């Protein structure tokens, strides 16, 4: 009992002091440094059009009109790409609901571009982990070039050029995967970037 009592003061006081330091000073200092040094990133890499926020470079948006580049499927609740409630589908490989979602996307892609017989890249028919994936693979972008060009009455070259400007390779040629930022491409196609 005595040993317990003797530990009470250090237990309580150290908890309070460490809370002050690690839950107060440390996050405040981090916020200060980032606010001064990297304000754009700190507030969410937001994109503005005439002062209004149209989105974030890092957060995907839902696109289903034929003239826009489409991103990954999104399994977020109430609506796709709900950035207030990130979520994956959590569907297992054998879950019939997974196949239904895939078939639904295949149907939508075929309906929007009936002549396209190329095999569909896997990331275009599967839901991302976050439900907010801002990117698709270059293969998935290329698959959609024909549809976008027809819908916008422009050359495929113009669409490809918008895609190329928003494509990133692997970091240092090694890390991660090549990818295309969907929102950026669509802003370019609309002449807003």
């Amino acid at each position: 009992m005595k040993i317990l009592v003797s530990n009470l003061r250090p237990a309580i006081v150290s908890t309070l002091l460490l809370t002050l330091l690690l839950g107060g000073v440390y996050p405040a200092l981090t916020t200060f440094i980032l606010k001064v040094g990297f304000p754009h990133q700190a507030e969410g890499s937001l994109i503005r059009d005439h002062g209004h926020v149209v989105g974030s470079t890092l957060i995907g948006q839902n696109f289903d009109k034929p003239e826009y580049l489409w991103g990954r499927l999104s399994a977020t609740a109430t609506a796709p790409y709900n950035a207030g409630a990130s979520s994956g589908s959590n569907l297992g490989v054998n879950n019939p609901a997974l196949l239904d979602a895939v078939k639904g996307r295949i149907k939508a892609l075929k309906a929007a571009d009936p002549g396209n017989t190329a095999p569909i890249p896997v990331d275009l028919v599967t839901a991302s982990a976050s439900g907010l994936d801002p990117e698709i693979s270059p293969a998935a972008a290329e698959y959609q070039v024909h549809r976008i060009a027809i819908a916008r009455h422009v050359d495929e070259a113009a669409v490809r050029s918008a895609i190329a400007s928003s494509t990133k390779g692997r970091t240092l040629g090694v890390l991660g995967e090549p990818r295309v930022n969907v929102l950026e491409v669509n802003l370019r196609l609309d002449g807003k970037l």
Partner: protein
Amino acid sequence: MSPIIAGPLLTGNAWLQLALYMAVLTACVVPLGAYMARVFEGKRTFMSPVLGWLESLIYKACGIDSAKEMNWTAYAVATLAFSAVSFVVLYLILALQNLLPLNPQALPGLSPDLSFNTAVSFVTNTNWQSYAGETTMSYFSQMVGLTVQNFVTPAVGLAVMAALIRGLVRKETSEIGNFWVDMIRANLYVLLPLSLILAVVLGALGVVQTFAPYITAHTLQGADQTIALGPVASQEAIKMIGTNGGGFFNVNSAHPFENPTPFTNFLELLSILLIPAACCYTFGAMVGDKRQGWAIYAAMTVIFVPLMLFCVAMEQSGNPHLAALHIDQLASHLQAGGNMEGKETRFGIVNSGLWASATTAASNGSVNAMHDSFTPLGGLVPLILMKFGEVIYGGVGSGLYGMLIFVVIAVFISGLMVGRTPEYLGKKIQAFEIKMASIGTLVPGILVLVGTAIALMAKDGQAGIFNPGAQGFSEVLYAVTSASNNNGSAFAGLSANTPFYNVLLGVCMLFGRFFIIVPVLAMAGSLATKKTVPTSAGTLPTHNALFVAVLVGVVVLVGVLNYAPTLALGPVVEHFNMIKG
């Protein structure tokens, strides 16, 4: 059924990324490990001029005599007292967050069972999350409640590790160090500087850090999109460094605001294993024989690398059901291919498989892809890595002391084979040490098997299952395994935010943490009182390849004996269901 994939399961780039990761990790082990040894030997470090005054100030305010050491019972009582106070403070913050500041979304206080589960989860360094961060937690709860525990729980792990190492090094004494000094030095000299650096770098690369309320964007197609924000960078850094893993957002490090680029992903991946791997070197340095530390590092790596390669290969092999629909799953320079359900484009297959392996080898438990959507055998890898008891690198501090439990058993078995009293680093391993080691290895197994059985038999347990068939069984098995071994990752389809799961998993987490810590400290106390036996020709060397092989064998044997039937019922059945089409 069409063949799954025509290309290689491990691409050239996969080999390159994985090799780079292991090389950079190994390069960091020596400087950080040596530095931590100085910290726990009480020596001055290059950080002492910056932080020494703060250290003394805290001792003074707490009434701690830093020169006074403790025996193992006093050390254990201090550990438990500190954890108990942490639990009470965190429970109150969570339950009463509606009355506290920094709650711009006006989120309500957490229910009692969720407050209990979350407080236990963060105090045991598990960081299992029954809730979705952005729809549940105020900025105050995240920053003052959870972030603080993200620091102090790995600090507790490091303290217990330091105590056990002292038990091995010292002779004929009952003292194994001062808990308060070890815990506070771990926070100030190890975790805080590393986290501050990582937080700023992550922030510069796109991880958000703001106290502004959630913002509404007007999208190109004319919808309104709510975008959750918060003080993420400061929490993200210590979440990764301290083998915590509790995400700011629901989808954890898959969220672009937690992990926006391949480079942030590399830094976060490195942070997962950084301290646990460096602890091996710290151990070698503190016992005065670095080969002993390298032997343990080698044993961990020998288990980790093949499982990680297997996980990546299984995910790259894709889903045969999609191949039947003529979906292109072949990796090329234009796409990652493979099983992309529940994975992010920027991470692809390689970084998702590597992360799933690293986060469960260590007791981190963060995710950058949804494990529930992994192929059955790809998902078996994180499951089995947790089942090894979180000793393949493992948690900060807890990985090393957990592995030393297996070392004691390996030495004991070797001793039986040659008919000599087993010794480790000159200390005789006797009945008391073996009893403590047995508790340490058996408790997680009992918790996992009994807990899973209870959940599967109870109506409330079955109600949480999401995916049909064997995958549903795996969801429950994964949750109980994760809680009992203090990992925190999930097959997230399971609806775990119910009173049933919150209480069951809370109890598993508590027992899984403290029923290891107390036996480890008891073992430290017992070892410290012993004399050191001089090495002789009959001494079993514990730094060579033979011993590494024995140690690997013991870890794998205990894991497989405990869990093979459960793995057969879950992932293996699901795999056959997948390939039969």
